[in-house]
């Protein structure tokens, strides 16, 4: 079970959280203006990297807030977590 750092509540066990997919997938400001291909990318295309992954979590059974985290997909080590709209740790 992962130990996940909520930016507001601190380290909590994984069972308090719900994963919410890849982070920094930006919804186009004017969806009508983007091509079908671009919209398909927004809907379906994800990085799924072998390595550092920026992902979203929600502290569902805690403060209820969404946030971002950087996790290494091979070791499951977290490099850090940060609020939505923030910059990932270097």
């Amino acid at each position, binding site marked *: *079970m992962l*130990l996940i750092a909520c930016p507001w509540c601190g380290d909590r*066990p994984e069972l308090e959280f719900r994963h919410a997919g890849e982070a920094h997938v930006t919804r186009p400001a004017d969806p*009508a203006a983007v091509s079908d291909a671009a*919209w398909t990318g927004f*809907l379906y295309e994800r990085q799924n990297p072998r390595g550092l992954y920026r992902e979203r979590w929600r502290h569902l059974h805690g403060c*209820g807030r969404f946030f971002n985290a950087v996790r290494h997909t091979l070791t499951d080590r977290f490099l850090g977590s940060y609020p939505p709209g923030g910059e990932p740790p270097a």
Partner: protein
Amino acid sequence: MRLPAGGRIDRDRPLHFTFDGRAYTGYAGDTLASALLAAGVSIFGRSFKYHRPRGLLAAGAEEPNALVEIDRGPGRREPNQRATMVPLEAGLVARSQNRWPSLRLDVGALAGLAAPLLPAGFYYKTFLGPRRDSWHRLWEPLIRRMAGLGRAPDAPDPDRYGNRFAHCETLVVGGGPAGIVAALTAAESGGRVILCDEQEELGGSLLATPEVMIDGQPCWESLAAAVAELRANPQVRVLTRTTAFHYGLQNFVALAQVLDRADGLRERLWQVRAGRVLLATGAIERPIPFPGNDRPGVMLAGAARSYCARWGVLPGQRAVLLAAHDSGYAAAFALADAGAAAGAGAVVPVILDLRAAPPEALVAAAAARGITVLAGHGVVETIGAGRISGLRAAPLRPDGTPDRGRATAMACDLLLMAGGWTPNVQLFSQSRGRLRWDAAADAFLPGGSPEAQASLGACNGTTELGAVLQEAAAAGRGEAQAAAAPAVPTALPIRAIAAGAVAARKAFVDFQNDVTTADLALAVREGFRSIEHVKRYTTTGMATDQGKTSGMMSLAVTAAVLGRDLPEVGLTSFRPPYTPTSFGTLAGRHRGAVFDPGRTAPMHDWAVEQGALLEPVGQWLRARAFPRGAEDLQAAVARECLAVRQAVGILDASTLGKIEVVGPDAAEFLERCYANAWHGLAPGRCRYGLLLREDGFLLDDGVVARLAPDRFHVTTTTGGAARVLHLLEDYRQTEFPELQVWLTSTTEHWGVAALQGPRARRVLAPLVEDLDLAALPHMGVAECRVAGFPARLFRVSFSGELGFEVNVPANRMPALWQALWQAGAPQGLTAYGTEAMHVLRAEKGFIIIGQETDGTVTPDDVGLGWAIGRKKRDFIGKRGLARAGMAAPDRRQLVGLAPADGRRPEEGAQLLAGARRAEGHVTSAYDSACLGRPFALGLLAGGRARHGETVFATRRDGPPQPLTVGSPVAWDPAGERLDG
């Protein structure tokens, strides 16, 4: 035999127990294994495949043979318990397993009947002949009878299982000398310490070596002092009979503690998050493969030493040691000395050493005890009916195989194997630590690890006690570990032991799964090269053993057959659990009613009193129908439907999801999320809302009421409430953080009584205050009082009839219900359930999310295109709907389906047309009392343009059935009944 003195047993506390129905007596402090061994029992079970008699190989958790059934009464019968890990208790009832009809006479073992049937890969080799159905009729029943472990219990477990979460700065796994010293020093440096050990007693290897001195003191005295110090330290929690069976991410370690408390608490799961983990898990002695090495009376040398020192049991009176490692000599000497002290004579007459030149000091020490050492000798075969009664030994040829021609026979009743030691790295490996091959240690040792952890002592390849204690003390203080002193090679490498045994017959590598060196050689001959494949093909290291005694030797034999070096062949990965863990421990309190806790609506108890049939809907348990007298479900549903259409019905609709959306930007927020237009909705009015996903497909639906300019009461489907709130929260927090809006789940705050039917207003009106009910329009909402309670009153219909939904605080619901029930009696008010609700809505062509939709259905597909706010710039799913193909005319569209033959179609049936290819499917099908015939809804390609056409629905009970396509609205298409 039991020695007259010694051991850690309490000879003043005899305990009576039975094994296979026979009475025995042991002592407090015994295990089931030591007590039976003391009583002269040598056969503990039959082997998995060949039904060969098997005795004790080991003394601890690694025991592969002595799996027994412990019977504590109904529901408390546990199979596959290792006799070495069962503390003796008064009245214990134990039975052997996998024997038929009895342990001594086993039909399966007669004439080697089983052996030819079960070679390596027997799971995978097909049993083709003699007939086509031979597998089911002949082979499978036979193999099932012959192969297998214990019987599963057949009654519910009446005991309780606990669960605790714990946090500590240091978790020490293993309570041997390394673990104890590490725990003591860790506690001195501060912080909470948890020390766990699978045994009943701390001490580990020291429990078998009372002759060893620590700082000039007998080690059992040092041990007692150290244990007392640990127990006295409030920062240290000592957990015995507690196995760390799972090492997960970020130092999350799961422990299974056996309690066997008188109050019924049997076991407890500990979920520990540790700052650092110190692994002191010791090492497991390696058996040596040679012909007949599985005969009862053939035992690991270290195990024999344990039985002798710890439990005062001499496991044999004439023992031969087969040594490939120095440590065997100490065991042989301990037995010889104990035997001499007890007047048992020369207990160990001979040591066979596989090495050509054993250390001179050991040979001299043996000679001083009158023990003959035959260097460069191996075992050709063991002899005995059941238990070993002798063996034939022979000098080894240069290739390591015994020279049969020069064999000599010798009598013995015990044969000790000292094949060297395998560091117990299972937990380290589970933690994703990397193992490295260490040639000097002749073992895989812990390498790098992503966790804050260290391995100490024998599991780290450190074997000399002084070095172990230093290493442990340093680790306990958190100091970086000094490189372990280079191990002095005192053993024949495992690869050489294996090479000498490849050609041997019946030389077992995995005792539990009955895998021999020949099986491994066969697997390689048949083309398996990867150790992972060899393992699975031969079933080596499966079941409770998990490679503890077999892993390294099977690897070494495979390497020898392949002619490769051992590290090249690799190592199979270790997975949790480390030892078998009961389902009870994993489940804890989550069983029965709280296995998956159900939710019940406010009128649940009333419904049960009325004899309602219940059905699960998501997490909820809802009333499906209220049969009267001898009515079956169908009759009850028909009566309930007619009551709603002709008079009035009442439904507990409290399970509907409800979200309060509040704030100055509430309308704008809904505008951006839901497909409908919201700014124009006046307070006091409702709208049927559609929520899509970004891909344009329907996610949820529900009535949304505007109570005030800044306050909406949003309803969702019963099963979709959490999903919808999660999605709305996501957009609120991450896409539209600038909006001033708050979302609150109010599902369980409101109880909802739905009154549906032409007489609904007549029932309700007398109970309503602060509102002119007659003036409340369809899709209107008002806050008022009903039966004296503050209420939100909706005029909505999910049946097509005049309808109201009265929301009151959930705790007022029973009183409201009673008031409505009394007021409604003269009007024929009838309680109805979810089944009638489904029929009524389907007659009107109203969809149910998840029934008419499946994640690939757009609003237009189900005729709800009208609800979309076309002029809106954006909403969730708008762009998705604009994708190519989302408006194609041949998309599957909602239609009504009237069976031409009067039979109810099957839900899920494929719809076929002329070309006999699937063009859709039946989504809902019911018998309709109101229509007087069965009917169905379905999704059909281009269906809206095909009204009047005949299609066919597949049936499981015969040829496809003709259906006439029509409008999905079968009841009151003009909508004239909404006003009653």
